């Protein structure tokens, strides 16, 4: 494949590995390279062992690799942990020379720029790119600081001018760098979210921070709730009262939101919920990644009701699907869940700018008075006219008990049956009609199909390119509920082996496919150590599976 370099910057929390990552990401992209960068860090604020890993390449890259070519290590412990992943021709950049440069420049704070300089030199990146990036990143600092950073970077750059890993850049195209959390926040902004309530929880906090950052500009009320129960009940209250509302959390907070999820369904109040997964049970690995909540989000909440679960497979898909989530929530008056995870939420890759206006807003609100308005009027589609309290003359009753068309509490069996049909059967039927297509890659001629949902998508895409000899194709499920059973089955063909690739221990997607399609997959490649799939991990496991087939 293409010529590429894998750079790992390791160090303690608080040492600025992430800043070095940011500087290098931008510098490399500015130089015309492609990058994929992910974060591996501990649940602590200072100390420990964390790293940022940047895969820089001449062509587009989509996933992490295992072997490191350049290791920057900001403390001795991290060096010993990471050195064993260094390729035979790899470069190890220890702290000492960088520290020396920093001291000479004005203090430890300049280590970051020095490190970036040293890496840039090893890749043969033109220094002016780095200079430009530093000027941009520190734009809000005073001139002296910018100057010192550039100076430190220059000294780092001069440490060793041997271009160990020459990559051919193809500059020109504009590229953006965006992580999943940012994409979800921007998608929500574009969708017109006006209320976001959340309780901080890694790895969903990025959405909260981002929305707070843009709150003033876009007139969004961002409220930190006292707990996740409040967060979802606030979102529901805000939605009932007329705005698009969202909440976000991780598995543990989602657990606390289950009753509210059921409330949204019963009262038929649209709400969008982001569940950014992390390894569980309980507190688990707060800062790491997993896809262990697929079954959970599909079945969460007591009782039976219609819902949608999206599992975006890329940053751009996260942007589009967040908008679609609001449209579907509004149209069907249901909760829509966006299943994310730490890997999607916090990784970035360089890519061309999105089509910002692809998704049109559809609110499905009653705009004028209708005679004899009833909030839960029975209709063929199961969808009742929804009006905002205060916006029409009639009083609107929403109820969490079983209710009649007017929204008043009922105990009648016949009404119950109609309401279950409405809330569940009819809405699900409608949702199934417009379920998203599974996304195929390299299907024709494939002997193996790698099946995945959510953040594995781009990794599997890349695996197919690397495993051309195995004739591997890939199907990604951007929507996992309702499950696109019919569409999926139509994609399949005689003799193809199905393998799910999942960041969990119980092959939940495989179970879902068995339940929804009656199809038992050939095998599953699983990873549940809190780390994302690397290209190599999947390739290795895949070869193993094929060997034993």
């Amino acid at each position, binding site marked *: 494949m293409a010529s590429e370099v894998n750079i790992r910057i390791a160090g303690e929390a608080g040492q600025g590995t992430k800043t070095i990552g940011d500087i290098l990401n931008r510098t490399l992209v500015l130089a015309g390279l492609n990058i994929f960068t992910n974060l591996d860090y501990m649940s602590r604020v200072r100390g420990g062992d964390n790293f940022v890993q940047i895969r820089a390449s001449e062509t587009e890259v989509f996933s992490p690799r295992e072997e490191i070519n350049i290791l920057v290590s900001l403390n001795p412990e991290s060096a010993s942990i990471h050195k064993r992943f260094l390729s035979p021709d790899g470069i190890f950049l220890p702290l000492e020379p960088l520290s020396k440069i920093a001291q000479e420049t004005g203090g430890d704070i300049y280590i970051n720029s020095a490190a970036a300089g040293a890496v840039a030199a090893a890749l043969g990146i033109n220094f002016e790119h780095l200079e430009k990036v530093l000027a941009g990143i520190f734009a809000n600092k005073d001139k002296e600081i910018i100057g010192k950073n550039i100076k430190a970077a220059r000294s780092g750059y001069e440490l060793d001018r041997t271009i160990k890993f020459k990559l051919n850049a193809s500059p020109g195209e504009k590229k953006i760098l965006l992580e999943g959390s940012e994409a979800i926040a921007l998608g929500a902004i574009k969708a017109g979210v006006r209320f976001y309530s959340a309780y901080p929880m890694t790895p969903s906090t990025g959405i909260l921070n981002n929305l707070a950052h843009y709150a003033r500009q876009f007139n969004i009320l961002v409220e930190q709730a006292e707990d996740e129960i409040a967060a979802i009940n606030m979102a529901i209250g805000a939605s009932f009262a007329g705005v*698009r509302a969202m909440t976000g959390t991780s598995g543990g907070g989602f657990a606390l939101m289950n009753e509210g999820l059921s409330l949204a369904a019963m009262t038929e109040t649209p709400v969008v919920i982001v569940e950014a997964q992390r390894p569980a049970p309980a507190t688990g690995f707060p800062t790491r990644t997993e896809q262990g909540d697929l079954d959970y989000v599909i079945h969460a909440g007591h009782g039976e009701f219609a819902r949608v679960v999206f599992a975006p497979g890329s940053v751009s898909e996260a942007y589009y699907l967040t908008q679609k989530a609001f449209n579907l929530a509004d149209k069907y008056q249901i909760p829509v869940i966006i299943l994310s995870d730490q890997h999607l939420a916090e990784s970035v890759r360089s890519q061309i700018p999105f089509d910002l206006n692809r998704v049109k807003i559809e609110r499905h609100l009653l705009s004028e008075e209708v005679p004899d308005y009833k909030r839960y009027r029975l209709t063929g589609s199961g969808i009742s006219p929804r009006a905002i309290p205060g916006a029409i003359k009639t009083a609107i009753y929403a109820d969490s008990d079983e209710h009649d068309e007017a929204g008043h509490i009922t105990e009648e069996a016949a009404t119950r049956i109609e309401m279950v049909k409405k809330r569940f059967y009819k809405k699900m039927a409608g949702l199934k009609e417009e379920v998203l297509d599974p996304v195929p890659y390299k299907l024709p001629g494939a002997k193996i199909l790698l099946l995945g949902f959510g953040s594995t998508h781009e990794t599997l895409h890349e695996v197919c390119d690397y495993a051309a000899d195995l004739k591997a194709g890939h199907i990604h499920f951007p929507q996992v509920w309702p499950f696109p059973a019919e569409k999926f089955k139509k994609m399949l063909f005689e003799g193809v082996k199905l393998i799910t690739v999942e960041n969990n221990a119980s092959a939940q997607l495989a179970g879902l496919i068995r339940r929804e399609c009656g199809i038992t997959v050939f095998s599953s490649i699983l990873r549940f150590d809190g780390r994302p799939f690397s290209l190599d991990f999947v390739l290795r496991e895949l070869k193993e599976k094929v060997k034993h087939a």
Partner: protein
Amino acid sequence: MPKKFGTADPIAWCPGCGNFGILNSIQKALSKLGGEPKDYLLVSGIGQSSKLPHYINANCFNGLHGRALPAAAAAKMVNRELTVLVHTGDGDCYGEGGNHFLHNIRRNIDLTVIVHNNQIYGLTKGQASPTTDRGYKTKVQINGVILEPMNALGMALSLGAPFVARGFSDQIEHLTDLIVRGAQHKGFALIEVLQPCVTFNKKNTHKWYQERVYKLEEDKSHNPSDLFEAWKKTFEWGEKIPIGVFFEKQKPSYGEASGLDGKPPLFLDKIEDISIGEVFDSFIVR
């Protein structure tokens, strides 16, 4: 009963229940406050108390047990043209919903929160609530309640509640007046209402309360702007039980402090053509 805020949904309370007095008072209060049914939103949780919004012709959100406050708070935040009242029980608001009670006092959103305090769990048939008197025996508290009865008004004052009052469901004029004042107060107005549960609370009966309540308005020494004295009053429970406004002091509401009140209500925002290009631009590497 004023027809405008009446409704046809049949009432499911026991005959003699104190909730009737509260229903009566709130209907009177809404008439006094004026406006149309569409201008009010009544939010409730689950419990006998929480059925009340169904008996009034006004917007209603009857949510989960214990979760009336967050739903009401957010509704008010985004749609501040609505006058939002919360009907909740001693179990709903102080038990299951205790954390929201705590933090929404701190938020100081412009809500009128009416706690139907029958000192018992009515709908679930008679377990102790956070306000049940010590020693009272139930099917669950077979040896009698041993927990300290919750001084919700005192707690509210500690947390900075700007309007703290108590009413009695048998004193409809007085309660009506409290509700009107609470609704007019810009901020979190707490009105705890002594509400006899004739079926499950055999101690704190209509008579029991009647023999004990006295009006703070008639107590010359009471000054509702004196926080510390008000707090002392919240401990008065036994031979004499004060009703009326314990404390009132205007302070910036959430709407004022957040700037929301200076802008058109959020739900009126046009969201169809949000231009996000500029933001995306900032993510372009250049």
